[in-house]
């Protein structure tokens, strides 16, 4: 006989869970009681806020490719997960969140710490379920893991009433699930569409590949590279796809979208065949849809049939896991090179270097820029670090300029744009990949949203490098106010505490620099420090991130200044 809580922990063990991020409370105490006996096989990281817990779970999942697991108690504990669930849902991050719930007989009575967690989380989960009887635990957990990690991954929430956690039952073992009657995670690959896509690609004069996170979610980096190298097609990435192909690969022509590179945005409206791989044509990538790639035939490779034609009309849909579909496509396409077409991207790149990049990465004088900090970081880490970014100007700068030689090296809140994401996500990312350097790049706004997670770093002793790019503003909002609201800087002037002192209070080493000549040494100190380190870099206050596709404009109307 096992209690529901013990059965849950057994299930997690069979699923190979080694790390849980969580925060205990009254309604999840039986599970925490069971957890007590499962250490050290399962490591529990005590976060300082449930939002920190779920972002850490996301960071863990994104860096390791495994399912992130999060525990929270009922009511306020569970509702604090909502932001992270929405973030994980839109960024297709596999998570299993377990929340405690009040006793079943109290459900719906406005009991202490009761909230309708299933109702609240329905729109932000791939699947959710409330367990009121312990015997349901093995079945539901098995389904939860299968749903979270298969097909287009996503967050799953299981709410377990306290009586079910306590209830003893005859536990007959746990079998992972790989089939649900109504759930088809992988569409059947239609070979006629692969053939049609190959024909279009073979006839194309100016083909162009856009890739997103789907390449990484499908673990299809090798297959993707093989396809690109056989076809010789230039390829650009969304911020969620960054790193799936190394930054310096000769066919990698840069970042798409609102703050993406000049060439890929302009050329989107010049290519004849657009091949989208595992990306969903987000509005931050497409700009105005009615002026987006109207001249091109579109081939869309996606595992989620609902993404086909959702935003951009597709000529040939290639449903399926790109790990399966890309090799089939590679077999059928001709070996080609597109030197003249590729050279056009490089021409635009040169134009962008002259107008923006050189000044951003190698400023001759004046205050430090965010770009030069990232440039210095690239030099020192040789592009091998995991870069976790928060949301705002620093995020766009880091995504634009960070060198990523390895896959799963760029962790950012792409779809929801959640400020406060980076610090906890970096903690999770480090737990997911202990052998890699993890650098959280955070603005002075975002760090203050989840700064309490410095306490998690203190207690767990995890080695996370925290780099605050402090421009003393909520920079991205300020940039928009400057450009589109006549410089009416409404509530973007944010004051910071002494971050180094704050870090010191948490027993974390730190340093602040505001002179260019001190930057390299400070970065070296941060990277070589044994353990966590907080480095604050004071950067120029009113710098704008360019290029930029203004809202409501076509991608080819991208502005260099």
């Amino acid at each position, binding site marked *: 006989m096992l209690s529901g809580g013990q059965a849950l922990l057994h299930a997690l063990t069979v699923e190979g869970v080694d790390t849980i991020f969580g925060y205990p409370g009254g309604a999840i105490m039986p599970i925490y009681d069971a957890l007590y006996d499962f250490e050290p096989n399962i490591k529990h990281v005590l976060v300082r806020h449930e939002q920190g817990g779920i972002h850490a779970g996301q960071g863990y999942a994104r860096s390791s490719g495994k399912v992130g697991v999060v525990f929270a108690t009922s009511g306020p504990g569970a509702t604090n997960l909502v932001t992270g669930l929405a973030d994980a849902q839109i960024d297709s991050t596999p998570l299993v969140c377990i929340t405690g719930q009040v006793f079943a007989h109290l459900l719906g009575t406005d009991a202490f710490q009761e909230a309708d967690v299933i109702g609240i989380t329905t729109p932000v989960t791939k699947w959710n379920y409330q367990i009121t009887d312990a015997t349901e635990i093995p*079945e539901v957990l*098995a389904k939860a893991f299968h749903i979270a990690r298969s097909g287009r991954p996503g967050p799953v929430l299981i709410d377990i009433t306290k009586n079910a956690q306590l209830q003893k*039952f*005859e536990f007959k*073992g*746990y079998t992972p699930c790989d089939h649900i009657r*109504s759930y*088809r995670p992988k569409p059947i690959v239609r070979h006629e569409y692969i053939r049609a896509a190959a024909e279009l690609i073979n006839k194309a004069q100016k083909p162009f590949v856009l890739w997103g996170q789907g390449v990484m979610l499908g673990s299809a980096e090798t297959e993707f590279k093989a396809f690109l190298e056989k076809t010789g097609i230039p390829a650009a990435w969304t911020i969620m796809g960054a790193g799936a192909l190394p930054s310096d690969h000769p066919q990698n022509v840069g970042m798409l979208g609102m703050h993406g590179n000049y060439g890929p945005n302009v050329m989107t409206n010049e290519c004849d065949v657009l091949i989208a791989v595992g990306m969903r044509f987000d509005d931050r990538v497409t700009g105005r849809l009615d002026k987006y790639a109207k001249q091109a035939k579109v081939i869309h490779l996606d595992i989620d049939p609902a993404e086909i034609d*959702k935003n951009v009309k597709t000529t040939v849909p290639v449903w399926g896991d790109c790990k399966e579909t890309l090799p089939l496509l590679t077999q059928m396409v001709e070996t080609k090179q597109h030197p003249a077409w590729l050279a056009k991207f490089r021409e635009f790149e040169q134009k962008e270097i002259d107008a923006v990049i050189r000044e951003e990465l190698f400023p001759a004088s004046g205050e430090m820029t965010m770009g030069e900090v990232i440039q210095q970081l690239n030099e020192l880490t040789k592009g091998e670090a995991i870069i976790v970014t928060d949301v705002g100007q620093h995020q766009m700068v880091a995504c634009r300029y960070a060198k990523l030689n390895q896959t799963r090296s760029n962790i950012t809140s792409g779809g929801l744009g959640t400020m406060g994401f980076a610090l906890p996500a970096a903690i999770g990312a480090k737990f997911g990949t202990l052998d890699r350097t993890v650098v959280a790049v955070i603005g002075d706004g975002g760090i203050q949203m989840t700064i309490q997670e410095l306490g998690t770093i203190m207690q767990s002793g995890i080695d996370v490098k925290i780099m605050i790019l402090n421009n003393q503003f909520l920079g991205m909002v300020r940039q928009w106010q400057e450009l589109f609201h006549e410089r009416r800087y409404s509530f973007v002037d944010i004051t910071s505490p002494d971050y180094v002192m704050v870090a010191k209070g948490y027993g974390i080493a730190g340093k602040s620099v505001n002179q260019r000549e001190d930057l390299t040494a400070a970065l070296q100190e941060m990277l070589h420090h044994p353990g966590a380190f907080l480095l604050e870099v004071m950067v120029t206050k009113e710098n704008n991130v360019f290029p930029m596709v203004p809202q409501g404009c076509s991608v080819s109307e991208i502005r260099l200044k």
Partner: protein
Amino acid sequence: MSEQAHIDREEYNITVYTENQVGLLTRIAMIFSRRKMNILSLNTSPSEIEGIHRFNIVIHETEEVVSKICRQIEKQVEVLKVYYHTNEDVIWQEMALYKVPTDVIAEKVKVERLLRENGARAVVIRRDYTVFETTGHREETDNLIKILQPYGLIEFVRSARIAIIKDSDGFNRKLREFERAEPSHEVVENEYLNSREKVFSM
């Protein structure tokens, strides 16, 4: 919304085959409400296949919007298959009940003729009131309201729409074929699931 999109809007009958799962109704309804779309009619019932439920949803939209929304519904874990059809492609019915005072009806109405002309029947006849029932399209059931209104109609209720497609194949076979054609893997669900009551003891 463009003028063309307004012109192209018409009634669509969405048929959703699902597993029988608590909370799924909310999940499906939210797909519409999130997009600020109004559901004109919604009916759920068990289908002819064990463990499978069937939703009939009616909305007034363009085909493009309907096809996208159907994919979003089909994306839900417990949803097996979603189809959509125009009114021309389905046979549909709504049922209506009318409660009227028995004495007035008995005195003033030629009930026999009323029933015959409206394809109605009396469900309950009591001293104080009589309940008529009719099924049909909206205009048909509306028509009987107009007729009964002058005689002191007490209460009226109309059901959601149910629809069956005209295509002779029917859903049943498609659904069974679908289950045969797309079995993702061998079924190795937790072996205890189907006999939970027998296996687990409290």
